[in-house]
């Protein structure tokens, strides 16, 4: 078992007038080497759940364990190390830095690890080749297409070779061809042994043959598994 959530509740702005309960008493187990989709309407809590699994947010109550290790309550410095080592994020708007080159964007997660520049370039080259963006290596990210941006985002999420890939609405801004391409990449990653969690309400993702499990989230609760 890779990920286990027990009684996880998340309340934003606790004890203030604008208090919002985003997640309510979530119990969830996600197996290793699986592809899980969190489906729900906007505001249902799926992104919050993904952020809690990714140790970006702390639950208000409850606990999150990954690979048997209680993570949700680790001191921040250890969470940072964990995120660097075990988690690759793909964001809805990709969050690529437009002024950096494609290569520099991809190697960004390696910078705090103190890896020598030559080794960083070598790792990036492998991924750029794999995702077909090697010819854009020295292009500023602001000058490449949407599909290429998406591949840069995936390559950046994989540069640390993390076992867990989290993607938050990755196809929201993509046409159907690029969405198909994205799912193709995810399928390859799953075959390579990664665990993938995707939030989406795009049928192209939720009904994809390689998705093992779809969890419907409504009003902060998991509706059905």
């Amino acid at each position: 078992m890779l990920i286990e959530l027990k009684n996880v509740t998340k309340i934003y702005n606790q004890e203030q007038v604008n208090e919002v309960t985003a997640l309510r008493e979530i119990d969830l187990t996600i197996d290793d080497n699986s592809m899980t989709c969190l489906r729900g309407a906007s505001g249902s809590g799926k992104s919050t759940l993904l952020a809690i699994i990714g140790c970006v947010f702390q639950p208000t109550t409850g606990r999150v364990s990954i690979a048997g290790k209680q993570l949700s309550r680790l001191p921040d410095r250890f969470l940072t190390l964990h995120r660097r080592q075990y988690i690759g994020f793909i964001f809805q708007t990709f969050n690529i830095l437009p002024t950096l080159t494609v290569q520099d964007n991809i190697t960004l997660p390696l910078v705090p690890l103190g890896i020598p520049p030559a080794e960083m370039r070598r790792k990036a080259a492998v991924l750029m080749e794999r995702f077909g963006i090697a010819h854009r290596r020295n292009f500023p990210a602001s000058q490449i297409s949407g599909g290429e941006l998406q591949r840069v985002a995936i390559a950046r999420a994989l540069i640390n070779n993390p076992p867990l890939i989290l993607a938050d609405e990755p196809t929201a801004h993509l046409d159907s061809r690029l969405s198909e391409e994205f799912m193709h990449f995810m399928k390859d990653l799953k075959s390579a042994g990664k665990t993938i969690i995707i939030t989406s309400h795009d049928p192209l993702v939720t009904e994809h043959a390689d998705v093992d499990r779809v969890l419907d989230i409504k009003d902060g609760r998991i509706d059905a598994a």
Partner: protein
Amino acid sequence: MLLNSWSIALLLCGLIVLFLMGLAARSAIRVLLFWNPESDSNRQIRLENEIWLTSTLVEYALGIQIISLIVFVLAANFYSQSIAGAMCATGSLLANSFGVPALLVKIGGVFFYGFWIVLHQLDIHSEQYPLVRKKYLYLLFLIPLLILDLSLEILFITGLKPDIITSCCAVVFDDATGGGSNLIGGFSHGLSMELFYGTAGVLIGIGSFLLRQRQRWMVVLFSSGWLWFFLLALAVVTTEFSSYIYAMPFHKCPFCILKPEYHYIGFVMYFALFMGAFFGMSAAVIEPLRFVDGLESGVAGYQRSAVKFSLLFLVFFVLVSSYHYWRYILIGGEG
């Protein structure tokens, strides 16, 4: 003496530190009452977040309080300009009955406050918050010390009057001066140098042994040795080394060496001595924590570094403090 920049800086610093510690005391009480790392409750999670902020504030507050020892000595030196008979901090500190106790409490505080910072650093370098209860209990014990520290400081500063006639260091530390005004009266000079170099040699020997092979009783012996050496060194610097630094046989003072005319050598000496003593003593202070879950390697690593640093500071202190003495012995003075 309240309305000058030194007094205002000292008192403001003390009040801010006490205020921050007062806030931290609230967290400390909550920790002692409700801390339960096994719980997933909202209260526990909020407490975990709260202590991060509190501990960081306490760490800085105690750091400031440690530095205030230097400000206090500099302030005492400054006050001497306005007190009849005083030539340096010695005269100011003896101008009323609160000066010396205030200095002693501040010196002791350096170690007690520093030990909290060591506990905190060990705690945050572990994934499991193993020392939260212990460090917050210790924090509650530090608050009376801080109150005493600030109270003595206020009593000392408010008790300083320009019409007080006090004694200068030449009288206070003079061998010929008997009675209560001589702070080191009765200190035997005969064995002091032998004890000084002998103890330093023993500490270097024990420390070197500890760096190769760790034994519990040796750690305790090393730290006890440092406590003894710290007190001995303060006396030897005053009675023996200082007069060689001043190049005046009858001038013995632990404070004049802090003055610019002696190139601030006192700051270098005392910094090395305090740092060495702190690291040396902290090795034994944290010894009981070796058996706390999640701290075994952290404690062992800290002890090793502490022994190493204390030895480096010891050698540096002995070399710097002895320089003028040996120069005089070997080549016959300043020429």
